[in-house]
């Protein structure tokens, strides 16, 4: 019995000595959830970053989007001893405590999709609302030849960000595309349902025969509108755009009903989180216009989140077209 105990103790000693080495920071990335296409794509991005820089990243997330599970994982990682924690919270509020503990221990904490958080070094967003709205309008205007009637579509009139995107798109049209006109209905809501988006598109075309463009926002708008455009045989004459998942609109991209949809690449945002953390780890500061080393983040913007904390946003939206939709994997 004594021998076994002695052997175990000796083994523990050896292994614990082996655990200390290397000069790189210990980095952990905690996604909202694992085993889901969007986050698989992020994982690939993080792994590519790790291979590129030669620094290991512990990528660990819950199997459900339950915050309790996510916070437990973050707690485990912080207690093991890490230098950098990058994450995307399911509920930013639920993560404040553990982030505070992490920062008290000197861990650099970088969040994304949590611009209101207090206990982080920085939060990084792919874009701001005005930027995405203008981007949607630029894309649609190019397809419409910068002239004709259009309307905006949102999931629901109560969805704050989608309505802000639509407002920003209209502002962009008024400033840059004088030959385009917003029809009197201005905005319709499809209850985040592609079937409803289809019905609305049919009805709107009947009401406004000259309607040429639908500026959607939510991910159900463009797929529904595209089905209606295709069935009416108006491919190439009527256009639609919104944020959408590549795999859900791939048929329409291939047959040309949709020229493009808007998306941001969460795997790029994840890489930017890691780059920002490395910058802070090296003792450098991050300021307005700093280069965070990825496309769309060459000159980042910094904004106040109203709680005395700054968050970073880039110009990280991109057009998903027939040429690149397959690269996303979702």
């Amino acid at each position, binding site marked *: 019995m004594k021998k076994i105990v002695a052997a*175990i103790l000796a*083994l*523990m000693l*050896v*292994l*614990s*000595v*082996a*655990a200390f080495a290397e000069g790189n920071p210990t980095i952990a990335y905690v996604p909202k959830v*694992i*085993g889901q296409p969007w986050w698989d794509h992020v994982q690939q991005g993080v792994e590519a970053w790790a291979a590129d820089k030669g620094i*290991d*990243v*512990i*990528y*660990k*997330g*819950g*199997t*459900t*989007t*339950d*915050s*309790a*599970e996510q*916070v*437990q*994982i973050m*707690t*485990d*990682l*912080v*207690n*093991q*001893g890490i230098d950098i924690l990058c994450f995307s919270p399911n*509920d930013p*509020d*639920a993560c*404040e*405590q*553990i982030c505070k*503990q992490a920062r008290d221990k000197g861990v650099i904490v970088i969040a994304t999709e949590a611009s209101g958080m207090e206990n982080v070094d920085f939060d990084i967003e792919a874009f701001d609302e005005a930027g995405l709205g203008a981007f949607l309008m630029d894309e649609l205007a190019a397809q419409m030849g910068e002239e004709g009637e259009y309307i905006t579509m949102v999931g629901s009139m109560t969805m704050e960000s989608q309505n802000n995107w639509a407002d920003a798109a209209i502002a962009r049209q008024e400033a840059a595309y004088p030959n385009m006109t917003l029809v009197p209905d201005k905005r319709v809501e499809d209850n985040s349902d592609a079937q409803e988006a289809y019905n609305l598109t049919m009805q709107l075309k009947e009401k406004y025969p000259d309607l040429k463009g639908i500026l959607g926002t939510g991910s159900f708008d463009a797929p529904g509108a595209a089905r209606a455009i295709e069935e009416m045989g108006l491919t190439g004459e009527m256009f639609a755009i919104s944020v959408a998942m590549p795999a859900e609109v791939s048929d329409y991209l291939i047959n040309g009903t949709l020229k493009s949809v808007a998306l941001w690449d969460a795997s790029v945002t994840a890489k930017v989180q890691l780059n920002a953390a490395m910058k802070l780890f090296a003792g450098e500061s991050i300021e307005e216009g700093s280069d965070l080393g990825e496309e769309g983040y060459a000159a980042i913007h910094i904004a106040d989140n109203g709680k005395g904390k700054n968050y970073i946003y880039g110009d990280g939206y991109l057009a998903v077209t027939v040429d690149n939709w397959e690269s996303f994997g979702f």
Partner: protein
Amino acid sequence: MKSKTFEKHSYTFMLLGLMAVVLLFFTALKGGMMWKGDVWLGIAMQFPEYGVVTLGLMFCFICGKMDMSFMALGNFATIMAVMYMGAHADSPAGGVILVGIAIALGIAVVGGLINGLLVAYLDIPPVMATISMQLVWTGLSVALTNGNTVKGLPSLYTDIGHTYLLGFLPVPLLIFLVIFAVAWWLLQHTVYGEKLYMVGTNIKAAEFSAINTRRMVIGTYILCDVICCIGCLIMISTMASAKADYGTSYVMRCILILVLAGVLPDGGMGRIDNVLIAIVTIQIIATGVNMFPNLNTYYASLIWGALLLVVLVMSTRMSSGGFLRLRAKKAAKA
């Protein structure tokens, strides 16, 4: 070699053995990391919230009933409590917190009562009845909050979740130990505990022994949901907010722990000390798996499942112990 104490506690020894194997396994592979003080402080901080919930559910299982609604009910109760506390932010925090806790526990009593009435008086199968109630509570929570988090807890309350008494004893752990002591006393030293095992073993026989089984079932559901709610009250302190779907991943985890501990939903069997060992073992596995950069979290479930299989096989193989003995005891009691 086989002493009487060993036979009596063979299941406990088996669980302790498994826990040692798990610890050795992670020590062998991760060495010092497993034995860092911070890691164990973390473990002591992490398991109390679902540990308390598990202790609540244990009463239901021993009674031979199932409760699927406890987390949804706990979330609804804590949402109401946080809303109250948030609305009275300018009153003295101590009083507001006490009223908030009273509100949550009051709702838990009502929820337990409804579960009990549905099962005991309307004879609805417990799983059906409590899944329906789970949907009702979740629906109410979402309707009330639009699915958003509810904030506004006084900082005095959120401090509970990360305060160490005397520098090393986490307050959640202290709460867990108090609940554990009370539950242990209830099961081992009260008439209620004795009756509970009888009802769980054979509800008909218990009825013929002049036990008011309906009252027992209702009382047990209330006890279960109140204890679960205390777990949720700890949880909202670590999360500094309440939400309709917090802790939903705990439901299966709690059931797993109980079955691992030999507390089967068939009722009438299982010991509370085994539940404690099972809770700690499950947390060690979760924390251990998180030490491997390349193991994803699904592996924790995999190890949990494998462990459960080992326990089931070993306990049925043990000629005089395990479930066979428990079953024999159950039959004898009946």
